[in-house]
């Protein structure tokens, strides 16, 4: 195989992407070199990394319209160079990555200023390697390069998660993450092995895999392995247990990238393998993904509602959103195998739309949470409250993210949910009996998840930012600095624009859908309006919607002011005839989650310590444990411990026995190899 780089006619987007990856690699090691000068890292290196991310988003935008470009990198094993390729699917995910990472990295340049300098240099190293790894995953065009990039991403994120490795809980979370990431990676390795047909195809390049036609049985095996491997990365229930541990453990900008972008690499991989490489073959694949997605969505949001740690709450909410995305993929597969290309395009558009939305609002919420965490020193919602008074910028920007994730119009979360529900509404068109009746009803689970997401966000925003400060020290909380604000503003703007201009966004998604399904979503509504399939069937025009709300708001406000008066008297809140109200009487996070705990009691194991009624300083502790952990993982952990114990019996410190072992092994080998 020749290692020559093809002479390109000009500067292709792929070459640009590669240059930015190189820039990140240089920045990563520059941080190590200049580790004694933290100012240089926070004021120059990280902002440059952010610019790189912005460039990556632009390259993605160019990659959507430019023809597919390829590139062979002469690194890697002999005879096994890295193949890179930039097509519409990769380009879309590059936009997602670049857009979200720009805001988050900008924020990080302010957030990390107070970090200790040795840790800062290491963080900068892994952070940039993490970005580079994720981009390489999206560009890889052969199984080998894909796995190398996948490992780079997994390892760098492991080191990012364990940044505060002196805390035992964080080490534990990091280990769990590393373990499940590798179980998933093994599954992916097997998947690529199956795809390569056990050596029937000469190369591991995706082109060869795409051209091969494996037997249906082996296709299904490969698909299941891919679903397991990517599901472990995405937090698919029941492979989600690492996510609520690892995401909160990382520093906030890293949590934002992990939740907002890294989970999407798994979605990218699933789309790449199932649609592009295998070309979805059986409709039960779709039913499986749909079912798992529904379970993941509902399970995730129920647990989000009972959390009392704000980052953990957001991590569970990420699980929910991954579930929603998987539901879209499942629907698209079902439609696709049924020969309903237009409907598959609608479902896939909803999926990709939700993926980019989630990158923006979850990134925003995580960095907003980071700002609160930094200013107050606590993640526990029960110790916060009233933060809006001291950090108005953070609060209002986070509010945009919270409203967007709650799926409220005219923000972006609503658009993708709307598209997904429209796809559900069209499912009676399926030709399979029963399926066309059951799937519409399954939409109710999505509605339940969306409504519960609103509950979760009212809880999150209300308990953290509104009300009275539950701790007097909160009054010293200070607003974040400008780079941090700009990062949040960028992501909030993204949420607003993605919500207000769905017709344009769908135009960007169209080449991707075209590539995967061979058909695009027809928008009947022009630039202003979103009308998939037919304007008479359903339409939504957020811009008009927004302008009308704005007009009514202004009119009402002016009318009330003109006709009456604007007089205001300030007083104490009404005390219900009980003058000793204090901040502790507000709902705590546990209190706000209590109805959910009661209704969905069978999903979780609740552990509670209620204080003695005569206690002067009562402490309440309530914990809702994940039943899946107790039912699936705890037995495995016990089995592993038991096996290690049994193996440990071999080891008893007596040299005679060790000599016997060596002797027996030697004899065995001699007999065996004779």
């Amino acid at each position, binding site marked *: 195989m020749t290692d020559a780089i093809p002479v390109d006619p000009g500067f292709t987007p792929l070459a640009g992407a590669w240059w930015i990856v190189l820039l990140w690699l240089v920045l990563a090691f520059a941080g190590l070199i200049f580790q004694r000068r933290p100012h240089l890292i926070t004021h120059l290196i990280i902002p440059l990394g952010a610019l790189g991310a912005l460039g990556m988003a632009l390259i993605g935008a160019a990659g959507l319209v430019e023809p597919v470009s390829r590139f062979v990198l002469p690194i890697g094993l002999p005879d096994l160079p890295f193949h890179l390729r930039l097509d519409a699917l990769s380009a879309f995910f590059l936009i997602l990555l670049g857009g979200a990472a720009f805001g988050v990295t900008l924020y990080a340049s302010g957030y990390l200023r107070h970090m200790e300098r040795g840790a800062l240099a290491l963080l900068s190293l892994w952070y940039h390697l993490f970005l580079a790894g994720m981009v390489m995953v999206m560009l890889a065009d052969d199984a080998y390069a894909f796995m190398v990039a996948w490992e780079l991403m997994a390892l760098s994120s492991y080191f990012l998660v364990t940044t505060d490795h002196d805390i035992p809980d964080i080490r534990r979370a990091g280990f769990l993450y590393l373990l499940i990431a590798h179980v998933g990676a093994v599954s992916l390795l097997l998947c690529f092995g199956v795809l390569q047909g056990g050596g029937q195809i000469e190369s591991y390049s995706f082109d060869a895999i795409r051209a091969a036609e494996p037997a249906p049985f082996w296709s299904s095996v490969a698909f299941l392995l891919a679903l397991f491997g990517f599901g472990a990365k995405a937090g698919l229930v029941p492979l989600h247990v690492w996510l609520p541990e690892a995401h909160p453990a990382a520093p906030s900008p890293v949590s934002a990238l992990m939740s907002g972008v890294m989970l999407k690499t798994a979605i990218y991989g699933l789309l790449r393998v199932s649609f592009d490489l295998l070309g979805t073959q059986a409709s039960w694949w779709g039913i499986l993904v749909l079912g798992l997605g529904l379970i993941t969505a509902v399970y995730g949001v129920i647990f989000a509602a009972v959390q009392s740690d704000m980052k953990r709450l957001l991590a569970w909410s990420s699980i929910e959103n991954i579930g929603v995305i998987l539901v879209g993929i499942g629907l698209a597969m079902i439609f696709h195998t049924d020969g309903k290309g237009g409907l598959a395009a609608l479902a896939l558009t909803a999926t990709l739309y939700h993926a980019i939305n989630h990158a923006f609002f979850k990134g925003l919420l995580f960095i907003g949470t980071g700002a609160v965490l930094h200013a107050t020193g606590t993640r526990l919602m029960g110790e916060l409250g009233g933060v809006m008074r001291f950090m108005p910028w953070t609060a209002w920007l986070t509010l945009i993210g919270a409203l967007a994730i709650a799926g409220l119009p005219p923000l972006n979360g609503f658009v993708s949910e709307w598209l997904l529900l429209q796809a559900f509404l069209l499912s009676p068109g399926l030709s399979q009996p029963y399926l066309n009746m059951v799937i519409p009803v399954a939409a109710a689970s999505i509605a339940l998840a969306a409504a519960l997401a609103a509950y979760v966000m009212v809880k999150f925003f209300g308990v953290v930012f509104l009300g009275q400060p539950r701790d007097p020290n909160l009054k010293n909380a200070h607003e974040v600095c400008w780079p941090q604000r700009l990062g949040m503003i960028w992501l909030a703007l993204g949420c607003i624009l993605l919500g207000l201009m769905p017709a344009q966004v769908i135009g960007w998604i169209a080449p991707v859908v075209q590539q995967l399904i061979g058909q695009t979503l027809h928008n009947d509504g022009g630039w202003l309006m979103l009308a998939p399939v037919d304007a008479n069937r359903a339409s939504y025009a957020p811009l008009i919607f927004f302008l009308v709300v704005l007009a009514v708001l202004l009119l009402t406000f002016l009318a009330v002011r003109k006709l009456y008066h604007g*007089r205001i008297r300030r007083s104490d809140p009404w005390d219900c005839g009980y003058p000793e109200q204090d901040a502790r009487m507000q709902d705590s996070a546990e209190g706000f989650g209590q109805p959910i705990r009661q209704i969905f009691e069978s999903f979780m194991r609740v552990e509670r310590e209620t204080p003695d009624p005569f206690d002067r300083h009562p402490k309440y502790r309530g914990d809702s444990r994940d039943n899946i952990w107790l039912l699936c993982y705890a037995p495995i952990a016990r089995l592993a411990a038991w096996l290690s114990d049994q193996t440990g019996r071999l080891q008893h410190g007596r040299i005679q026995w060790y000599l016997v072992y060596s002797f027996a092994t030697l004899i065995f080998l001699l007999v065996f190899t004779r």
Partner: protein
Amino acid sequence: MTAGILMQLAQTLLAILLAPLLMGWTNQCRAWFQGRSAPPLTQPYRMIRKLFHKDAVIAHDASPLFRFAPYMVFACMALAAGIVPIVANDLPFSPAADAIALVGVFATARVFLALAAMDIGTSFGTLGARREMLVSFLAEPALLMVFFTTSFIAQSTQLPVIVETLAHKQFAIYPSLAFAAVAFWMVSTAENARIPVDNPTTHLELTMIHEAMILEYSARHLALIEWAVALKLFTYSALGIALFIPWGIAPAGNYGALPLAMLALVGKMAAGGLLLAFLEAISAKLRLFRVPEYLSTAFLLAVLGTLTHFLLEV
């Protein structure tokens, strides 16, 4: 087009102006059923007027969100009233939002009110917000399934198209709509804070949901919220009429049918208010944790409606 826009504006204004009247009528009917002497029909208007004239009393720590929320809630309800066909099926604004977006509009208003309730930090406010969000997450899937049933019949989620299909095309009997209608009624009582889910006249701490949220509001803010509540009831009634008994709504462009449509609207609304008051008078409020059972019944009925549609009507 101009006529359509004028019609749209007139219809929305009509909804805003008539909404307190429906509230007054329902209160009057309820007083009759309960054997009390009834307040006049115009009582809600007087109440709103009185509130607008008062000085607003606001807690020291209230954030701008607290003062913004009533306007937002009112704007959302006005928007919702603009989406639903009330007297004429001539809505140039309707392509901007369909039935699913309508659910979103109601959700937006609710979330703002719940956040505002948590803003002051009194225990009642948070209690109300929590309960309101509880009721809503149970009611929303059921409401959406009701919309799904009607959308499957009309092959559209646009309300004017649904009305057009049911009222102005060939007459057909849809058994699925019977299930959906009962489910819709149950959901509406929950969403409008009526008995058996909530009691609009109570200020008893153990039971209140909606009233607990707005306890801190006074004067013009309270007036706007009360008005928005009346408007929500009106919009839900109009929605029920449009989905289940749409006969009488004037087809697009047919202005001759308007007087009849007005009469039909007044008649249907009066009957609806009477029925609501009657059902409220004979039923008791549910304990909070019986509400999930009530709303899951509504949900099951809506699902049955959808399945009936597929089994009998396709």
